[in-house]
């Protein structure tokens, strides 16, 4: 098992060394990139929006219930909501959701191409199939996931604002005061650093699982599951490492 793990790491590193090469034709790369941004990014806006609004609402309710003390100003609820959403919920939870949605998509599409010999066809033509197929997917996520996370933070805060006010847990004005108070722009930057790291993890691990499939439809399904599980584990691990390095340094 340990040998398999290190063999896997080696194969992953070798695949990435093939991926990060100059594209044969830039125009074809840009076309593929736009297509991947639509498929992996724009098509994820809906799920990210719904999750973020409800996540913000739930965080506000739970924070309000835990801070229901007359000595604690109400706007503290909004501060806690803001920090929770910015630091953890939007970058990490949304990335975990994207690992499921986008990761399975990448692994199954590449796996299907592998078992139907489409990747072999590219190789026979002289195309660097790894770079041609995987690079646009990774770059699309590196570019678009930060946009998704910014959107998620904004919608999460809006969800908290609306639900907190509507349920009478915190007034609209106190929420706005809390959201603005002691705002640290670095926390948003930290969230984006984590998002970029997670985007690379999702893109590269899922692509590795799909690209290296051997067998048929069953193996494509297994690869898709592996892509999600491994991406999620790697995100959790990276979350710990990055938090310790950036915030605890």
């Amino acid at each position: 098992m340990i040998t398999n793990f290190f063999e896997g790491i080696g194969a992953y590193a070798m695949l990435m060394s093939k991926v990060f090469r100059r594209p044969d034709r830039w125009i074809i790369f840009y076309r593929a990139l736009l297509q991947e941004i639509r498929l992996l990014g724009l098509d994820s806006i809906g799920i990210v929006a719904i999750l973020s609004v409800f996540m913000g609402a739930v965080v506000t309710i739970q924070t309000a219930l835990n801070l229901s003390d007359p000595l604690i100003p109400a706007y503290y609820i909004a501060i806690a909501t803001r920090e929770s959403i910015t630091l953890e919920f939007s970058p990490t939870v949304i990335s975990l959701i994207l690992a499921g949605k986008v990761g399975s998509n990448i692994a199954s599409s590449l796996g299907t191409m592998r078992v139907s010999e489409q990747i072999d066809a590219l190789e026979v033509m002289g195309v660097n199939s790894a770079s041609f197929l995987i690079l646009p997917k990774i770059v699309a996520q590196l570019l678009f996931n930060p946009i998704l996370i910014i959107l998620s933070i904004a919608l999460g805060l809006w969800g908290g604002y609306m639900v907190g006010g509507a349920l009478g847990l915190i007034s609209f004005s106190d929420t706005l005061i809390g959201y603005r108070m002691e705002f640290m722009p670095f926390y948003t930057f930290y969230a984006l650093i984590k998002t970029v790291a997670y985007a690379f993890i999702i893109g590269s691990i899922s692509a590795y699982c799909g690209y290296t499939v051997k067998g048929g439809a069953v193996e494509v399904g297994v690869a898709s599951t592996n892509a999600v599980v491994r991406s999620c584990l790697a995100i959790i691990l990276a979350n710990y490492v990055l938090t310790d390095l950036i915030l605890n340094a």
Partner: protein
Amino acid sequence: MIQVKGIHKQFGDNQVLKGIDVDFIPGKTNLIIGRSGSGKTVFLKTILGLYDPDQGSIHYGDEILGQMTKERRKLLRQELGMVFQGGALFDSMSVAANIRFPLDMFSNMTEHQKDERVSFVMDRVRLQGSGDMFPAEISGGMQKRVSIARAISMNPKYLFCDEPNSGLDPETAIVIDQLIQELTHEFNMTTIVNTHDMNSVLEIGDHVVFMKDGYKVWEGTNNEVLGSTNADVEEYVFKSKLFKQVRAALRK
């Protein structure tokens, strides 16, 4: 000319190719025949460079595949066309886009020249009017023709086909065989076809190589295959009732 010298290939404990030597005849249709599991597909993919041989060498003209630089190998690949068993068409692209793909990637043609080339190749494989359809919308026979069209779009020197008529009805299979034969002669390509279809052997086999259990057992022409005295070839060729009757008729 493609020469294969002493090729061995092993996957784990499974020795698939066990020292094969073949000289493929330039400008002709070379057929590799044998039962399923005899090593034909691995042999073809090794010649193409998709698998590296454990021992032996593959010669394209004066050059050895394993000793070529990456750049030279990339250039060589543009001289190769491959028709995969399942077609291996890019299912997100239309028929015309599939055929055009190698031109977009590697040629310096203008858009107009590419359009003309795609149109010519589609006409040549009798696919007129299908350019906007997607692989999932066309029949198996048409998919094979698209695959052939894509393979010849760059005007290759070498054409490889892995069981090009598997899964097709006999009539369509003959059409595909004849198309491969015509294109081989028309474009003076060296064609190597993997098959276990005896009709293909008799129809287009200018040069036939028989494989069994990873060995080359016999080679000759389509005219010689029916008269071969090799026990393995006889067993393979005359397995069906039809060919037993053919043998009986030949011996009369």
